[in-house]
């Protein structure tokens, strides 16, 4: 029986989650090109049947299995939903650790961009100015995602790693800009 089959096909009893990777857990092929809406829909569908709330009246064993299943689903959802985490996870499956927190930047081109955008954000005083920084960073993040899709399609993992670092940085900038937007509003 495949590890990602949450229920026994004959007796319908809930099974242990097993060792399936996050893609298989949610029923996807191992690819960077996933539709977020679809990831979400699969996750919801599976949680509807596997979440511990569905097993509240069952035996302790079934409750424990359901908790393990729901835990694995949450982990898979978290890893695949966000393009950045998805890219890091794909790289990790190939033995490449990205492990950057977005604070240290070594790529010289990224470093230049980073400084410029940080400066723009620091100087932004009005909501519209912050919005402009966010919009710029979002465009760059979308471009990085498109680039990642090409990198993974070409199986160029080194390039994918560089692009992932770039996206890590851009995501962090967007988060900071968004927080700043709430404060200047």
């Amino acid at each position, binding site marked *: 029986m495949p590890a990602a089959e949450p229920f026994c096909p004959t007796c319908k009893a809930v099974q242990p989650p097993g060792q399936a990777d996050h893609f298989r857990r949610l029923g996807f092929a191992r690819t960077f090109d996933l539709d977020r809406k679809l990831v979400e829909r699969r996750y*919801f569908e599976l*949680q*509807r049947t596997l*979440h*511990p*709330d*569905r097993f*509240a*009246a069952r035996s302790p064993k079934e409750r424990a299995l359901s*908790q393990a299943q*729901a*835990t694995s689903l*949450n*982990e898979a*959802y*978290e890893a695949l939903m966000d393009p950045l985490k998805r890219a890091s996870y794909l790289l990790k499956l190939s033995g490449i650790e990205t492990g950057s927190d977005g604070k240290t930047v070594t790529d010289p081109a990224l470093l230049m961009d980073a400084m410029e955008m940080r400066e723009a954000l620091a100087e932004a005083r009005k909501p519209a100015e912050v919005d402009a920084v966010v919009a710029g960073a979002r465009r760059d993040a979308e471009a990085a995602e498109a680039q990642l899709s090409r990198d993974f399609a070409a199986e160029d993992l080194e390039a994918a790693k560089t692009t992932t670092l770039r996206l890590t940085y851009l995501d962090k900038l967007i*988060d900071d800009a*968004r*927080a700043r*937007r*709430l*404060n200047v*509003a």
Partner: protein
Amino acid sequence: MTLLQLHEPGETPLPHEGEQTLAVGIDLGTTNSVIAFSALGKPEVLRDAAGSGLIPSVVAYTEHGPVVGSAAQARLVDAPETVVSSVKRLMGRGAADVKTLAGTLPYRFDAADGGMVRLLIGDRRLTPVEVSAEILRALKIQAEQHLGREVAKAVVTVPAYFDDAARLATKDAARLAGLEVLRLVNEPTAAALAYGLDKAAEGIYAVYDLGGGTFDISILRLEKGIFQVLATGGDAALGGDDFDHAIAEHWLADRRSELGSEPITASEAKQTLNSARSAKEALTQREAGDFPVMLHGKTTLHRLTRLALDKLIQPWVEKTIAICRQVVSDARLDLSEIQGVVLVGGSTRVPQVRRAVESFFGKPPLSDINPDEVVALGAALQAEALTQGSDTLLLDVLPLSLGIETMGGLVEKVVDRNTPIPVAKAQEFTTYQDGQAAMLVHVVQGERETVADCRSLARFVLAGIPPMTAGAARIRVTFQVDADGLLTVSAAEKTTGVEQRVEVKPSYGLSEEEMARILEESLEHGRADMERRLLIENRVEGQRVLLALQSALAADASMLDAGEAERIEKARLGLARAIEGEDRDRIKAAVEALEEAARPFAERRMDRAIRAGLAGHSIDEFKGDPGGCLAPDPEEEKL
């Protein structure tokens, strides 16, 4: 105390056949608690004869035993030292936490030992868990009276921002009360469930929940029966109680010159806070009012305007908005993506709070469902879903990051806040000395970088690590959080397989032995069945009325004419006799008869007291808030 009855008893469908016990939803609040029951997807609040679904979360420890609710609240006047309110603020708190709360909670504490704080009430030494269990036990009995069946299971709500210790304390309290907790549900999530199902809402919503003692803000996505929490935040010690406190401080400042350095008693503090709460409630409807404060036997009237109130509570309101800002940012959303904001909790009736919420979210907040009841309705729906099955599903998150202490008192985060639960995360740590045989694992919860700023949940020792050079051992610590938000930690040394598993319980929880002892005691005493409890409650109420009459007569017997005095005396004797008997209906009738007989007298006294209070003031005092100098000063706290 009046019995509860279903709002529309005829409409309650019978539960499924063969179902032996019923499951209810309980909102165990700081100020009030609410029970609701749901059948066929229609939740109903269980109400008393007067139509009220709010049961004050107040316990009085009388000579006849504990009483709960409005009967307990009534004793605040005569025997405040026996009354415990707002105990929810102490759930899962340690003796050290209480030091910082000592200014805000008018109780005597036993802070002698570590672990869970103990309240000193009369000659009893009580944990907050036991006091909460008393409230839950009363709720359970009332629900059973209502539904005519045993109620053994419940969904109990907790503030989303409750930490692990407070959640566990709540679950323990339910267990002591003889209730199996089907699930602990976060209050804003429960509110969203009731709201979403009722209004068929879809999209992203914020739930702003300001109760008596806690504040939560959760952002959820509602989609085809799924209620997915995207981010949550709050403050487990911020609520309407703080508003009351600010008002009371303000009044005490008015009388400071007269009081001098003489401290007020805990009882006076409780009564002043009570009056402050009435003022706050009155000013949700009116622009100004005069409110009595009784200190050292003298009652004065104090004017409070809406404007002055707004200014007094402003710091707390601003704090909630700052938290909202953080949570919107955590959810990685722009404000424009939030479709609506729902108000929950009695403190959202304060106009200033509504204005602040509207101004931050940029849209008028929704409060179509009674903000005091919506959480219990959601809990009842969830209780039905868990026992009867359902198409809806709540997906919640961890409110506060979990981590362990590393070298130098720093915190290494293992599970980040806002991670969907259930969750399991593991992290590897190593030894820092050659031949180190044991390792202390210190589990903490919170967002700060240092252990001192986070909440300590548990410590345990992983022993039997085989001798290795520093840094060679691989110790894998696994954190597992279940759907109730409760944590289990296990640790294993990977090269040898030495393993230990701990339920995170020790720091502020009750030990198993303590639980067993309390359970045994409560079974012995608690079998006194519900008739007995109701009889006691009626007697206590009867005595309260008699005492009140006695002191009124002592002061103002001269205001009575002969006929009136005779009528009152006759009713008084009737009640005194009824109290000695065992018939609670007779006591109830006698109380009503006495209140009726004494009503004109009571009204005359009230008129006179108000005139006297007004006469004691100069006109200048009634011009309202002079402004600028009323910010509460923590140095001056006397309460």
